[in-house]
């Protein structure tokens, strides 16, 4: 093979090789494979997860407080012990945060009855209890509202006839659901005052048809998850013993 022949054969090979691009899609096969106990677990992955799992299990089951009784959102008419507990816990935990940031106090708290996702059982309260009560990631916000919007909030509660959790707002209605009295922190409503209402981001955005948060005079995002409010509150107190009280009642 002389020099020219080598070059020629290289060129031919180049031509053949470059053509051989293998790029024509001619067949597709699709299926799905079930992940089940017939597959062996990868031990490295399993070992990596283990300390995380153990920490969570231990933490979820650690006792934070004690419940004197079993509390359910279905026990009560216009206010419930469990709802009162949640709204009061929100006030107690949120107000110092809000005050330190703004110098102002929260005037009232409103949550939604549907947002109480489980009961609190008599006996030990753990982090798991807080996860069951509030499985969602919703956070606290404080909304500045004019008197007219507070009226809408109160009208919503009256027309809804539901025990939405409230704190610092006291409301009584007659047998026809006409408002008999409405006070905030013991005072009658002031036409010129701006009220600071704590709620969660879901309700602020119109969840549960609570449309009275808009328009508003300002919004403060506390970056404080409702679940963490509950956990922090449980850690702070030894025992919870909430009751159905007179914060929203019908006078017959």
């Amino acid at each position, binding site marked *: 093979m002389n020099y020219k022949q080598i070059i020629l054969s*290289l060129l031919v090979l180049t031509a053949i090789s470059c053509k051989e691009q*293998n790029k*024509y899609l001619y067949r*597709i096969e*699709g299926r*799905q494979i*079930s992940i089940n106990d017939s597959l062996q*677990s990868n031990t490295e992955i399993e070992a990596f*997860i283990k300390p*995380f799992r153990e920490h969570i299990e231990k933490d979820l089951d650690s006792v934070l407080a004690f419940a004197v009784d079993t509390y359910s959102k279905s026990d009560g008419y216009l206010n419930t012990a469990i709802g009162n507990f949640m709204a009061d816990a929100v006030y107690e935990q949120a107000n110092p945060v809000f005050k330190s940031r703004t110098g102002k106090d929260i005037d009232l708290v409103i949550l939604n009855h549907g947002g109480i996702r489980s009961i609190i059982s008599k006996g030990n309260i753990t982090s798991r209890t807080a996860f069951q009560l509030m499985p969602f990631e919703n956070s606290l916000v404080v909304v500045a509202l004019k008197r007219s919007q507070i009226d809408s909030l109160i009208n919503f509660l009256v027309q809804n006839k539901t025990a939405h959790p409230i704190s610092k707002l006291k409301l009584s209605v007659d047998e026809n659901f006409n408002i008999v009295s409405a006070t905030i922190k013991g005072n009658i409503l002031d036409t010129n005052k701006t009220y600071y209402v704590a709620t969660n981001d879901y309700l602020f955005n119109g969840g549960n048809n609570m449309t009275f948060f808009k328009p508003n005079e300002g919004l403060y995002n506390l970056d404080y998850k409702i679940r963490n409010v509950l956990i922090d509150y449980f850690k702070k107190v030894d025992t919870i013993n909430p009751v159905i009280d007179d914060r929203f009642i019908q006078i017959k």
Partner: protein
Amino acid sequence: MNRRDFVQQASIGTALISLGGIGLSSFTSSTASKKITILHTNDVHSHIDPFGPEDGRNANKGGIARRASLIESIRQENPNTLLLDAGDIFQGTPYFNYYGGELEFKLMSMLKYDAATIGNHDFDNGISGLYAQLPHAKFDFLSANYDFSNTDLNTHVKPYKIFEKDHIKIGVFGIGIELKGLVDPFLYKETKYLNPIEITQDMTRILKQEEQCDLIICLSHLGYQYKNETNKISDLTLATATKDIDLIIGGHTHTFLRKPTIVKNFEDKNMLVNQVGCYGINLGKIDFYFDSEKNKTANGTSIIV
């Protein structure tokens, strides 16, 4: 292709390699037929542990450690494998509530995920919550129709990525669902949602014409189908309105399909839409076979599902 054809082609390929071995091995690096395997999950929702034996619906199913073994064995069989996720990695078990997605991303990195798109629940701890976990992910987040330029995620999410496996160029792009009304605006902040069809048309033009990809995959969190909301864009409507996509890997609707759906695209060509339910209960596996001879594709690509 039957086994005999395959063996014959394989030996031709081998012959070419040995000839090329004289000095041009760079051009002849492969056998006659190439296989690209695409593995995929969607809506795993922090389901790291398998469901327990007592679970009412999914007893003993799922589990990332099992998924890892399966993926490992598939990769051993075919190293030219991509592993993709179609979003909603976050939210569903206390692992997310406690660690904010750190464990999910670390484990997906250990499983060598290549890319994921962003689902609506991946915003559950806000843009900042997702951003904070990004250092734990050794894979790329792809989204072409979320404009993050006024958020922390700016430059951290790419519209598409091109992977090369065995000289096959695979273009993968991400498409997300409209966030308004689905996710709290506090969480997604100034993320702008762009029209999925228009963006997909841009993506396929870039990936097919400019980048000359051999395979185009859309990682979508749009949802498989909306029977009662015909105006709402889904994977099936996206598939029929666009061209040049070979596979849409879907999520969001937690749709369990008996098998991948064959859909006719805008050019009346067959392509696949797939989704594998949720919670890591299933792994999708789509194999693409390429050949050097065009005559095999004369009658169109055969799809076996």
